C-alpha cells in the first residue's frame, strides 16, 4: 500500500518552502481557469503558511499583502485567464480571517483546559 509522493503539505513539512509556494500558486491559477471560486481561500491560507515559513520570523497573518501580490502576479503570467482582482482580495481577506480565528483558538486552548479542570471541581 505504501506509495509516497510529496504533496504540498509534505513539501512544507520537509522545509521545501519555495516548491510548496510554486505548487500552491499553480493550483490557484488552475482553479481560476476552471472557474472554481470555492477552493481559493484554502489555497490562500496555505500560501500564508508558506510565506511565513519562508521568512521564519513573521506570523502568517502578517504576510497577507505579499500573498495577494504573488497571486496576482501568478494570474498575470497566465495571459488568457479571466479573473477579477477583487476575487483574489476576497480570498486573501477570508484566509486572513481564518488564520486570525485559528490564532485565537490556539491562545484560548490553555484557558479551555483550565476551565475544564474547574468544571470537574464543581461537579
Amino acid at each position, binding site marked *: *500500500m*505504501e*506509495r*509516497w*509522493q510529496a*504533496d*504540498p*503539505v*509534505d513539501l512544507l*513539512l520537509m522545509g521545501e518552502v519555495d516548491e510548496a509556494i510554486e505548487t500552491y500558486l499553480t*493550483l490557484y491559477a*488552475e482553479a481560476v481557469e*476552471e*472557474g*472554481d*471560486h*470555492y*477552493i481559493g481561500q*484554502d*489555497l490562500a*491560507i*496555505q500560501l500564508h503558511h508558506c510565506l511565513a515559513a519562508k521568512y521564519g520570523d513573521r506570523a502568517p497573518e502578517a504576510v497577507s499583502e505579499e500573498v495577494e501580490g504573488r497571486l496576482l502576479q501568478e494570474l498575470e503570467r497566465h495571459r488568457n485567464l479571466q479573473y477579477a482582482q477583487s476575487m483574489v482580495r476576497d480570498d486573501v481577506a477570508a484566509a486572513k480571517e*481564518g*488564520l486570525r*480565528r*485559528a490564532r485565537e*483558538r490556539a491562545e484560548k486552548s490553555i484557558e479551555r483546559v483550565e476551565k475544564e479542570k474547574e468544571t470537574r471541581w464543581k461537579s
Partner: protein
Amino acid sequence: MIVNVVVTEHWHQITAHEVGFARDTHTASVLRTKYSPAWFSAPKYWKWSADFLSGRGFQWYVDKYAEVTTENPWNDVVLYFSRLSTAAGSPTPAGPLYYPGRYPILSSAAMAAAAEALAGWFCQTHYNWDLISRPPRVTPDLVFRDRTSKRWALVEVKSSGRLGDVRNKLTTDMIKLLKVLSSTKQLRPKPYCAGLVMVQVAGPNNASLTSLILEEV
C-alpha cells in the same frame, strides 16, 4: 510497530438533487431514509497492516493531519489499554506512578490525533490523494485533491474508542458535510467528492476504519 486495521470501504455516486436535499431537517430526513441506505450497499472489506515505522514514520502523519499538537499519540492509546487490562486483573507489570485498581481514562485528544493521522494516511495512500489544506476552525477537516482526476475531496474525520455499527453516525455527519458542499455550488462548476472517515480504536494494535466517499455526478 504494526497496527492491524480492518477497513470497510463505501464508495457511491451522488446526484445534485441528493446534495441539495441536505438543506434542512425535513429534506435531510428524506435523504436519510430514502437515499442513504444505497451509500452503504456495496461495501468492500480488507485488512491493512499499518507499519508505523515505515517511510517517514507515524509522527509524520500526526504532524501532517492532526489538529492537536502531540507527539506519539498512539503510545497513549497503547498505554491506556495496557493499564486497562492491568486494572482488570491481568498479570502485567505496573509502571511507575501506577497502582492496581486505578482505572485509566483514554486521552481523547491522543485518540483523535491518532485517528486523524491514520485517516489521512489512508486517504493519501489508498485513494492516491494529495493533501492540500487543513482548514482552520471550519468544516471540512481535510481538503484533498485526486492526483489523477484532479477532483477535490472534502473529508471529515471522526474517531471513537468503541466498536460497533457506524453507519448511522456516518450518515448524520455526511449530511452535515453535504450541506457544506451544497452551499458551495454557486462557487464551483466541477463536481467534488465528500468523504467521511471513521476510525475506531479497538486495542493497542487494532483499529477499524470505515470510509464513506460520495462522488458528485
